[in-house]
């Protein structure tokens, strides 16, 4: 791109969601000194407005698909799907943050600015057509998340969480960058389609090994970001330590974006060497599901249990990637949408019962919730049933599509093991329902505050979405299926 490059109007339109969110994030930081004390809720309201506008911008950008900024970015259905998804998760995260920030007396301006920046990064990631762009997006997203993880700076667990996330995250980014460098060395390009073209040419001997090593390094970096085993060690500590709304966000939006680039890079740039990377994904998928589910069985802390469950769900998603087919990609996209809804919903309930300084995030704190607040308990049950994968919820169809894709790609054993895993998972999700419904109210639920509008909205939206995906999955799936052919 020459220095005198002037973006065309198409470029601007296709980049509009990122522009809107960046401008709003900057405005929020400017407004912070003036309104932080007087109107702490203002920042949340403004964020939601900008996110809604950005979602519309993303949809209208999706109507004119094509590359932007000299092919660095590409807006296709795939990018649009994920942009709308991460922006949607952003809205749910903001909704579930009101009560939390108010309770902890935390600064709201910077919080929302960081959240918006993180979403900008994810939007760039999912529409990146060039490994450098992907990397920049990943960094924008990650750095904002590192800060968010330690947002309550006087809280020691927040600090631990942020430090761990930062150190291990930078390490993983290093791997990714190293992989990119090797690829550049072999193919002299960082553009995804360019790499695929270079790899499909009959290459010099030795190229294959180099590319495989590069792909493996990138796999390590990305597996870290999606918390796939054996690079999942950080997730439980980070999700447990971070503020609950941030955990809800981190377990869904960055993960969705990371999966998007996982799919895009491996299926666009590396289809030639898929026989080399498929076993890696296979093993990682099985390990993630098994480690996640079995470790979650014995957890007593809600956030930590949800962290392990998110590792298991990363495993299911890796199964879809291992299928390396179009229906596998569509299945992963559908699953990410369903997973985002049920996971944010479940975290919203955790935020609600957590109370000041998150003192009540043990599983036993849910005791008798169904008696005190039947609505909240019913909604958590919906999310849990969806996480288990019971029909008529989004989680069921997500699993169904994934394992269908896997069986179609002849990954029979992986599917059988995965499905058995989901039966194991039923145990620890059911345990929460046992505590909520079958036990008498405990101290926490007796002194529970009524549900605030923000959290209620987040829960209701997530539950409605979970049912929509469970009863009429066709709507989202057809969208996902249209998006699986990448613009190359």
């Amino acid at each position, binding site marked *: 791109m020459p220095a005198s490059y002037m973006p065309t109007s198409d470029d601007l339109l296709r980049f509009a969601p990122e522009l809107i969110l960046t401008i709003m994030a900057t405005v929020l930081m400017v407004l912070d000194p003036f309104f932080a004390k007087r109107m702490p809720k203002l920042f949340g309201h403004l964020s939601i407005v900008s996110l809604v506008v950005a979602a519309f911008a993303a949809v209208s950008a999706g109507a004119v698909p094509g590359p932007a900024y000299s092919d660095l970015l590409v807006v296709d259905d795939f990018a649009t799907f994920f942009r709308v998804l991460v922006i949607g998760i952003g809205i749910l995260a903001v909704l579930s943050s009101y009560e939390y920030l108010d309770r902890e007396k935390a600064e709201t301006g910077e919080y929302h600015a960081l959240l918006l920046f993180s979403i900008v990064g994810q939007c760039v990631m999912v529409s990146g057509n060039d490994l450098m762009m992907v990397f920049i997006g990943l960094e924008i997203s990650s750095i904002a998340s590192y800060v968010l993880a330690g947002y309550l700076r006087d809280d020691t667990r927040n600090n631990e969480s942020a430090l761990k996330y930062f150190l291990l995250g930078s390490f993983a980014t290093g791997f990714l960058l190293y992989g990119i460098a090797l690829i550049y060395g072999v193919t002299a390009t960082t553009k995804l389609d360019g790499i695929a073209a270079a790899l499909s040419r009959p290459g010099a001997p030795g190229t294959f090994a180099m590319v495989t090593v590069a792909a493996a390094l990138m796999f390590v970096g990305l597996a870290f970001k999606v918390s796939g085993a054996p690079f999942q060690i950080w997730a439980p500590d980070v999700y447990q330590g971070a503020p609950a709304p941030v955990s809800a966000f981190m377990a869904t939006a960055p993960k969705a974006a990371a999966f998007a680039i996982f799919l895009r890079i491996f299926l666009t740039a590396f289809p030639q060497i898929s026989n080399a990377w498929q076993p890696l994904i296979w093993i990682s998928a099985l390990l993630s599901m098994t480690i996640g589910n079995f470790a979650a069985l014995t957890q007593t802390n809600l956030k930590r249990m949800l962290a392990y469950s998110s590792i298991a769900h990363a495993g299911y998603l890796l199964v879809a990637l291992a299928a390396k087919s179009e229906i596998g990609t569509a299945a992963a996209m559908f699953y990410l949408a369903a997973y985002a809804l049920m996971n944010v919903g479940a975290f919203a309930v955790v935020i609600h019962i957590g109370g000041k300084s998150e003192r009540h995030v043990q599983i036993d704190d849910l005791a008798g919730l169904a008696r005190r607040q039947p609505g909240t308990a019913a909604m958590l049950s919906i999310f849990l*049933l969806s996480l*288990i994968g*019971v*029909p*008529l919820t989004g989680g*069921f169809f997500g699993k*169904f599509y994934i*394992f*269908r894709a896997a*069986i*179609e790609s*002849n*990954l*029979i*054993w992986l*599917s*059988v093991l995965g*499905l*058995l895993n*989901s*039966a194991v998972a*039923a*145990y620890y999700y*059911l*345990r929460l*329902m*046992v505590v909520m*419904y*079958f036990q008498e109210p405990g101290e926490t639920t007796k002194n529970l505050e009524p549900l605030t509008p923000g959290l209620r909205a987040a829960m209701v939206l997530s539950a409605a979405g979970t049912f929509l995906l469970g009863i*009429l*999955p*066709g709507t989202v*799936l*057809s969208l996902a*299926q249209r998006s699986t052919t990448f613009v190359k």
Partner: protein
Amino acid sequence: MNLLDFLIALPAIGFILALLVPRKQEKTAPFVALVVSLFTFVLSLGIAAGYKTGEKGLQFVSNGVWIQNPEIHWHVGIDGISIWLILLSTFLTPIAILLSWSAVKDRAREFYAFLLLLEFGLIGVFAAWDLFLFYVFWEVVLVPMYFLIGIWGHERRIYAAVKFFLYTMAGSVLMLAAIIFLYNRAGTFDYAVILDSLSSGKIVFSHLEETLLFLAFFFAFAIKVPLFPLHTWLPDAHVEAPTAGSVMLASVMLKMGTYGLMRFCVPLFPTASRENAPWIVTLAIIGIIYGALVTMVQPNMKKLVAYSSVSHLGFVVLGIFSFTQMGFDGAVYQMLNHGISTGALFLLVGFMYERRHSLAISDYGGVATVAPWLSSMFLVTTLASIGLPTLNNFIGEFLILQGAAQAKFTWTVFAALGVILSACYMLWMYQRVFFGETNEELKHHMPDLNPREWACVIPLVLMMVWMGVYTQTFLPNISESTAKILDQSRANVPLRVALPAAGTDGGRHAR
């Protein structure tokens, strides 16, 4: 929308209506549920009246696309087997609601809502004609039963509820894998289409594939039946469940397993079904005898009835895997019989528990002198359960034993032991509970049946007699459909043996 769609939708609407009852007027929830379930029952009677014997194929078919891709159909219909099982579900749901009237006070609207959701799932399971739809209903049934046991059950309810859920879930995920595999071969979930392409040789499984697919389906169903040695969840679930839960569980939910074996395992995988029949029958016979022996030593009435179910359901499995017309007919008939008579036993035991707050046999004795009507109703049910001629179970057991004898006489010899043993444990229990000295406690706490309880018992007892003396109402429809299944289980056998292609793509599994 035809009548059958409406029949499935009605309990679902009732579920929502019951949940919408305001907390303050919770007392109206049972009324809402009862009215809805009675409407459902009347509607199902209408469907039964409209069912034409002698007409080939499904009736009351409704087929529309539910989900575009992969194409999943709302394909429902009934044949001579499902019509009776649907009637059984709609018949027992109002009874289950009525019998809970005074027993369930806590969180009543959820209780009745879950009963209706259960009915919705059950009708759906028996009507579904699309494998995917079947799986959806199959799983939907789990949720209300889990809550019914877990919230309104007895002391160890949590353990029982979780065990029940996990056992069934573990079986059904394998079935899901098999369903997806079938879909990838056949390109459809539509059961009728899959059967057609099987019989016309469009899809051919290798021997290994067929065996594995059969086992995946079989285990899901065998856990539900439950077949020995997968039965251990059943006594726990039954004993801990509230009476209405036990009744629905024993009477209808166990039939989901035997229905699945008959509807799906046998026609889809005829060769594997026949090949595996010897060990399955062996397990069924072990279940009959072992179940009966364990029943005999139970000190707890509810557990006694629960274990007797293991024994009775063994007969049904024996009937199915005898691959004879009589065995099939008897199996279906026995599913209905067991639903009526074991349902009645659980119901009566529940009434006694409400009075005495104990299930231990030793806490009773001489009930016949203080509650003669209750005792006589219990006696009729006991006699039905042990297979006295002119009462329903006799017909079913006789047909099954006859069918088994046609297949292999030794099976009959061993299975018949179960009939003798059932007389031992039931009569012995009856003697200890109802005869002998009446203890002081009972004299004050054992009033006879009240009108509401009569209303629950009478229909069941009438059905026992009806099904015992006038089989013409039921058997023609059943035979017609079982004959078809028997035909399917034969028709495919020579075809598959003749096709040499069967072995060529067997290696695909290994990956």
